[in-house]
């Protein structure tokens, strides 16, 4: 059969397929290594090949040990991470949504200035701000408390920018006008009309915020000294760092199992929310 080209059935490209296959391997091999390694004892981990199963299947023992090691501190870290995600990423999403909508749909003095500050804020990496933030929080007496993680997490310049641009496209001015003529107050418009239209954008922002808070490492590393307040990232690193120097006690099997447990909620979140996310990504790409 002769090849017919149609816009909906693009021609297959061997090169692209090969590139994708390599990329797939590149992404999946570390994950496979992680999953396989999580089934090994510390002893097997050091004596067998990384991509082959060990002598004993110790996944469940490892999981049990991860949750009980050092007085069950891992469970505490998991709870901390959830707390930081719910309050930090949740708050960041709410703030970004409200502010992004406001900036997109209301005209007021200083709007341009806010835009400039926002772009600047996106350009500055969080790492560069970590030490000044630490010193500021130290003056406020907030270091070594959960607030030191939650408050900085509430600010998401990129999320704000995303909602802003998304709201410009997704919320028609005419619709707002109609709602106002019907007598709805601004708050009611926001909650009943705007939020629904913004939902894909909000979910995208929420996902970004959840992922960045879940993976937040450097800020908690310098803010917290009390392991009881560590999130999973810093806690796992502490377990991993135990392997070096005088009095080294490597527990790589627990670090690896802990890492697997750590990524499970993120994977679940992506699977559940990807429907929204896809529509969020493509929104605005076609002129309506």
């Amino acid at each position: 059969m002769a090849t017919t080209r149609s816009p909906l059935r693009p021609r297959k490209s061997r090169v692209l397929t090969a590139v994708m296959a390599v990329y797939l391997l590149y992404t999946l091999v570390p994950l496979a290594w992680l999953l396989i390694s999580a089934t090994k004892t510390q002893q097997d981990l050091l004596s067998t090949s990384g991509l082959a199963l060990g002598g004993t299947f110790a996944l469940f023992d490892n999981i049990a040990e991860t949750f009980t090691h050092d007085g069950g501190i891992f469970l505490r870290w998991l709870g901390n991470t959830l707390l930081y995600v719910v309050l930090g990423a949740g708050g960041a999403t709410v703030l970004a949504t409200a502010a992004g909508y406001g900036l997109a749909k209301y005209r007021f003095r200083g709007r341009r200035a806010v835009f400039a500050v926002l772009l600047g804020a996106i350009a500055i990496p969080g790492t560069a701000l970590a030490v000044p933030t630490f010193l500021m929080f130290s003056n406020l007496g907030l270091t070594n408390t959960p607030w030191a993680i939650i408050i900085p997490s509430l600010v998401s310049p990129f999320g704000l920018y995303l909602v802003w641009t998304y709201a410009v496209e997704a919320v028609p001015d005419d619709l707002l006008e109609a709602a106002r003529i019907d007598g709805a107050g601004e708050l009611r418009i926001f909650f009943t009309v705007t939020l629904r239209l913004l939902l894909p954008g909000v979910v995208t922002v929420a996902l970004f915020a959840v992922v960045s808070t879940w993976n937040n490492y450097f800020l908690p590393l310098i803010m917290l000294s009390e392991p009881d307040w560590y999130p999973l990232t810093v806690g796992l690193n502490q377990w991993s760092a135990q392997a070096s120097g005088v009095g080294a006690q490597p527990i790589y099997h627990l670090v690896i199992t802990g890492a697997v447990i750590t990524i499970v909620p993120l994977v679940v979140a992506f699977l559940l929310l990807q429907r929204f996310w896809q529509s969020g990504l493509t929104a605005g790409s076609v002129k309506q």
Partner: protein
Amino acid sequence: MSPTRRSRQVAIVLATALATALSACSSGDGGTAAGGTTGTQDAVDAALREGGEITYWSWTPSAKAQVEAFQQEFPNVKVNYVNAGTGNDHYTKLQNAVKAGSGAPDVAQIEYQALPQFAMTGALVDLGQYGFNAFEDDYTPSTWNSVKVGGGLFGLPQDSGPMALFYNKEVFDRHGLTVPKTWDEYVETARKLHTADPTKYITSDTGDAGFATSMIWQAGGKPFTTDGKNVKIDLQDEGARKWTATWDELVEEKLVSTIPGWSDAWYKALGDGTIATLATGAWMPGVLESSVPGGAGKWAVAPLPTYDGKTPVTAENGGGGQSVLKQSAKPALAAAFVRWLNNGNGVKPFLDSGGFPATKADLESSAFKDEAAPYFGGQQINQVLTAAAGQVVPGWSYLPYQLYANSVFGDTVGKSYADSTSLDPGLTAWQQALVDYGNQQGFTVTTG
């Protein structure tokens, strides 16, 4: 995230924090590093009777057991034990808390290489005011020298790491190798081993600042001297060149494995004979016993090779002690805890956890010296290790910004390792980086 990237970030924070801490120090009363004070232990005893609450930061394996034992002995004292991180993580937090003026613990574990940095910035209490200088004869000279900075006493030594040669006897026997007594023999052994079995290496070294400085120390080098704000750096002195002349052969001929130290691959290599020897501190047996079960019965300990093969000399590698922070609201009680840890009943739980002590009495006790170690095939390894404790070259000191120095070792000397070329240009580049940094930090740094 790769470890190098993380340590670089940590290094940046350390650098920033140190910069501000130093400038704060110079504008103030100049710290207390100079001079040194004397007093009696009465205040410490009184504080211990009165009791109270203190916080202790440490990552040593024995810390938890020690805190529990201390609280049992002194029920009126509450010690909040915090494991704030291992190595650089711990120091970053400590330096940040010092800089911020609050949040530091009362007592902290500080390794010998990091002590000058904290002592020079006025972060630590001079324990001389509590009469602790009287303990001098209780410790090996090299560890005591390590807690003295500019005449002040800024901690009590807990452990020590006199270097010895750990070797895999099974690998040596299989290839008919003899234990090298000189570094020339060591290089020769490395060649023979790698020729006989190309999968085996004499050791692994990808460029580690702690190892390099210890090796320069053993070779008689004294690259760092500090007098107040004046620092002298000479990483091309006779000792340093002696070491590089030997080590260059190993690096240039690719006779050392490039497995990074302390990685999972490294532990594996220690178990299966890929890495045949380790020149490292006397605390290594505890690590081998607990974490390299595959090496049981294979490893043995010999004195560190020397350059002339006659006088036994060695250096310290790793180890540290506990110090009292200036921020402490109860410095006398904190000092009492440090005294108990390293000059009292705290030593026993430390020894039980497999630690190698700094206290002469424990090093010389026959129970410790003559103990046969099953992991080492029954060899009385402490005979070798305690002998080494008395053979450390005297007069060594670290830089007052050694943590920063170590963090940029990889960027400079690490290049020589990566290219398998002579280490001398790398050391020269390292020296230049340290001179520049020191001058920026308000020191007056000279070379040569």
